[in-house]
C-alpha cells in the first residue's frame, strides 16, 4: 500500500513529465509551421516543372530518355524516410511496417537473390532495418536537423548514376505524406524509372510554336533529373512536416494523459489523507476515553 509520501512523490514526477511533454508539443508546433511553409513554397516549382515536362512529352511523343527505360525489375532500391528522433507516436513504425510488407510481398524473389537494397533517411528506419536481415546501402541519419535541397539533389544524382549503370532497375520511395497536423498518409512513390506522364492530365498546349533551345530532347534530358530532384525533395519535406505533426499530436495526448493521471492521483492522495486523519482522531478519542474511564 502506497503511503502518503509515495503518492506525493508520484504526483510531482508526473507533473515534471507533463511539463516536458508540453514543452515538446510547443516546440513541434513552432517547427511545424516552418515546415508547412516549406511545403507550400516548394509546390510552385514542382508543379511548373511537371507542367513543362508534360507539355514537352506531349508534343514530342518520345520518352527515349534512359531514365524512363523500363527494365526487368531485378535489382530494387527502396528509399525509406523515417525520422531522426522518437516520441512521435506510431509515425516511424507505420512506415517501417509498410516498407517491410511491401518488400516481402512484391519483391520476394529479389530478396532471395539479395537484390533489394535499402536507403534510409532518418535514424529510426536505419536502426530498425540494420538489426534485421536487410542490405542497407545508404544511411542518411541526421539530415532533418538541417534540411537542404542539396541533400535531395545529391542523392538523386547518385541514384541516376546507379540506374544508368544498371546497378539498380527500380527505385521506390516509402514515406509519410503530410495531410494535416493530425493526419499523414503512408505513400509509396516510384522514383525510377520515370513513369510516362498521365495522358489525361496533359494540358493542351501543343499549338504554341516554341523555339526550342538547343532542342526538345536536350531540354527533356536536362529537365528529367531536375524533376526527380523535386520529387525527392518534396518527399523529404512532406515527411518532416508529418513527423512534426505526429509528434505534436503524440505529445498533446501525453500531456492529456498526465493531466488525467494527476487527477486520479490527487483523489487517491486526498482519500488517503482523510483516512489517516480519521484514524488519528479515532486513536485520540479512544485514548481519551480510556483515560476517563480509568
Amino acid at each position, binding site marked *: 500500500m502506497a503511503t502518503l509520501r509515495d503518492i506525493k512523490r508520484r504526483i510531482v514526477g508526473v507533473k515534471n513529465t507533463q511539463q516536458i511533454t508540453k514543452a515538446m508539443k510547443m516546440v513541434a508546433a513552432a517547427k511545424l509551421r516552418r515546415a508547412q511553409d*516549406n511545403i507550400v*513554397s*516548394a509546390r*510552385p*516549382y*514542382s508543379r*511548373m*516543372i511537371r507542367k*513543362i515536362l508534360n507539355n*514537352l512529352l506531349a508534343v514530342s511523343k518520345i520518352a527515349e530518355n534512359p531514365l524512363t527505360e523500363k527494365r526487368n525489375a531485378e535489382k530494387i532500391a527502396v528509399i525509406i524516410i523515417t525520422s531522426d528522433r522518437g516520441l512521435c507516436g506510431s509515425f516511424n513504425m507505420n512506415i517501417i511496417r509498410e516498407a517491410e510488407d511491401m518488400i516481402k510481398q512484391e519483391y520476394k524473389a529479389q530478396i532471395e537473390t539479395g537484390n533489394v537494397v535499402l536507403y534510409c533517411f532518418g535514424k529510426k528506419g536505419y536502426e530498425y532495418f540494420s538489426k534485421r536481415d536487410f542490405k542497407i546501402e545508404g544511411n542518411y541519419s541526421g539530415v532533418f536537423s538541417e534540411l537542404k*535541397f542539396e541533400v535531395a*539533389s545529391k542523392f538523386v*544524382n547518385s541514384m541516376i548514376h546507379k540506374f544508368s549503370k544498371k546497378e539498380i532497375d527500380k527505385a521506390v520511395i516509402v514515406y509519410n505524406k503530410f495531410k494535416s497536423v493530425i493526419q499523414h498518409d503512408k505513400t509509396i512513390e516510384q522514383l525510377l524509372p520515370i513513369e510516362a506522364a498521365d495522358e489525361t492530365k496533359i494540358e493542351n498546349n501543343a499549338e*504554341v*510554336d*516554341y*523555339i*526550342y*533551345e*538547343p532542342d526538345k530532347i*536536350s*531540354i527533356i534530358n*536536362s*529537365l528529367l533529373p*531536375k524533376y526527380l*530532384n*523535386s520529387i525527392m*525533395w518534396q518527399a523529404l519535406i512532406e515527411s518532416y512536416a508529418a513527423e512534426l505533426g505526429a509528434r505534436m499530436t503524440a505529445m498533446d495526448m501525453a500531456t492529456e494523459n498526465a493531466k488525467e493521471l494527476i487527477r486520479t492521483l490527487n483523489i487517491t492522495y486526498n482519500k488517503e489523507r482523510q483516512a489517516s486523519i480519521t484514524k488519528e482522531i479515532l486513536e485520540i478519542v479512544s485514548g481519551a476515553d480510556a483515560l476517563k474511564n480509568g
Partner: protein
Amino acid sequence: MKEIHLEIVTPSKMAFNGEILSVKVPGTKGSFQILFNHAPILSSLEIGMIKIVDVENKASYFSTSGGTLEAKNNNVILLVESLESPEEINLKRAEESMQRAKERLSSKNANLDQVRAENSLKRALNRIKLYNKIK
C-alpha cells in the same frame, strides 16, 4: 510601357515575381536576352549569370546553377535550382570550393566524377565572377 512579367521559381521559394523590362539568361546555346514580344521559347539554362532590368531601368544580377526558361505572351518563367544575389555570395567559400575542384581535377584518381568536378568548378568561378563584378 513594354513590360514583361517574370517569375523566378526555385525549389525553396518563389524568388521573384513582378514586371520587368528585360532579362538576360545563360542559355545552353549561349547567353540571350528576352525583351518585350519575344517569340515563345523553351530553353535549358547553364551555370551562369542572370541579369534583370526592372521597370526603373535598374539592373540586378544573380548567379544560378542552371535550370529552364519558358517564355510566351510576355510571360517568362524561370525554373532554377539555385539563385544567389551578389550579397548572398560567400567569396571565401567560393574560392575554397574552386581550389577543391581544381585539386580534384588535377588528381589522377580513376574514380573521379569528371562532370561533377567540372560543374563545381564552374559554379565557383561563376560566383567569384559575379562577386567581383558588383564589388
